């Protein structure tokens, strides 16, 4: 298991999750958990995914997803899970 956190922030529009999930499916990234909220029309999503079986290395997945985000006008960010577990779990 090699967990990453994908966050998507931006103006809400049709098909944001679909686009991101399509990319992940095509590249062998397994989604473990999804949560989302909408704050004042702003779409805010977080995914926990496993890249252990991914076809691309982490850096490539992160760069590609950033590009996908640009195409649909939202900000997509990939980070390794440890930064969050370090900060929020003892």
């Amino acid at each position, binding site marked *: 298991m090699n967990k990453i956190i994908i966050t998507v922030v931006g103006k809400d529009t049709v098909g944001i999750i679909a686009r991101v999930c399509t990319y992940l499916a095509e590249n062998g990234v397994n989604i473990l*958990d999804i949560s989302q909220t909408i704050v004042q029309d702003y779409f805010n999503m977080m995914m*926990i995914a496993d890249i252990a079986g991914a076809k691309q290395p982490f850096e490539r997945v992160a760069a590609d997803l950033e590009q996908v985000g640009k195409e649909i006008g939202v900000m997509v960010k990939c980070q*390794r899970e440890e*930064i969050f577990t*370090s*900060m*929020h779990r003892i």
Partner: protein
Amino acid sequence: MINIYEVNETNNMIQHENLDVRTITMGISLLDCASSDLAQVKERIYRKITTMAKDLVPTGEAIERDFGIPIVNKRISVTPIALVGGAACQGPEDFVSIAQVLDQAAREVGVNFIGGYSALVSKGMTRADELLIRSIPQALAKTERVCSSVNVGSTKTGLNMDAVKLMGEIVKETAEATRDRDSLGCAKLVVFCNAPDDNPFMAGAFHGVTEADAVIHVGVSGPGVVKVALKKARGENFEVLCETIKKTAFKITRVGQLVAQEASRRLKVPFGIIDLSLAPTPAVGDSVAEILQEIGLERVGAPGTTAALAMLNDQVKKGGVMASSYVGGLSGAFIPVSEDQGMIDAVNEKALTLEKLEAMTCVCSVGLDMIAIPGDTPAAAIAGIIADEAAIGMVNQKTTAVRLIPVIGKGVGEMAEFGGLLGYAPVMPVNPFSCERFVSRGGRIPAPIHSFKN
């Protein structure tokens, strides 16, 4: 499993509150580079640094990408050069040539500062120590990335007043040698009492002789995060205030610990320490002064400033200590004037004076830091200020330091520009009465009675 609120909290800290890791500093021992042949010493130093640290910058950048956390600086500290060059250097110019090699090596591996052009003279000076100290003005004028420090006292040894007097003159000469750049050389020169061996922050970083061959230290930061957290605690009592600071410091330090462990693992260099310092930058919102204002002061320097800073410093340590397996370095709130917009504003509004800053250094790290003073301040007055600050460190068993910039050609109220993270500073007045007869006595001030613990 991590939830969306936790993820958002972390990412807000990074994107909106200036959370970053201030520095990954690789300490490298140069003791094995010593030789009586100067050319050989220089060749060994260059080879060792460029070999050991060749992956430092790319590794730091990879960690930034993986975790999405900015790592502002990648730096190197080395063994005090007075020890390494002692056998080979016959005059100050020989030491200057070593400084130039350090500068080249730093440029080659892509670090913005290299610290350790240093001498440890808390009790006495060897010939090499004195030659190195006398070479500092030219070394800092002729290099871009080299940082220098001199330890002139400690709780165990007392104060070496000969070195204090000499450093007053050296600070002045360094200012003259870099007068065309607002005496920038002095921003890279620190005079210490109780200097730590494992400090990752410049300009005072050096790799102490008690350290391993190479080691990774990390300096965390995050004044902006503390300030935003405290906004939510407005009007609450001290218990709530302290809890808020501790929790925030814990979170910030955990990020530093993660980065340190990753850097250590990837570079195959042992992890040394995390330095738990609140280090400000000139960016708006990244200020220790603003935290003190959020705590309840109209401006830094107002009555209550020392108490507020003492509390802040203590809570940062209490929160940070549990977050890291090894804590060291300076570990405390920094109060540099030129690198903190809130401090600059306080000086401009005459809320903050040199004397109040001195009082503040009694309760926090690290000392009188990045303070511009008039260019015509006598060397003896600078030595007197160094002696005062070192005495605070010696008696209170803590690190203190002085990084004063006598800006040649400028007077009180004028502005000195240092650029980048070093910021800018209004020139502050210095007490005009003389201490010439005091600093000229020669010899040492003995160690205080409470240092005899055996």
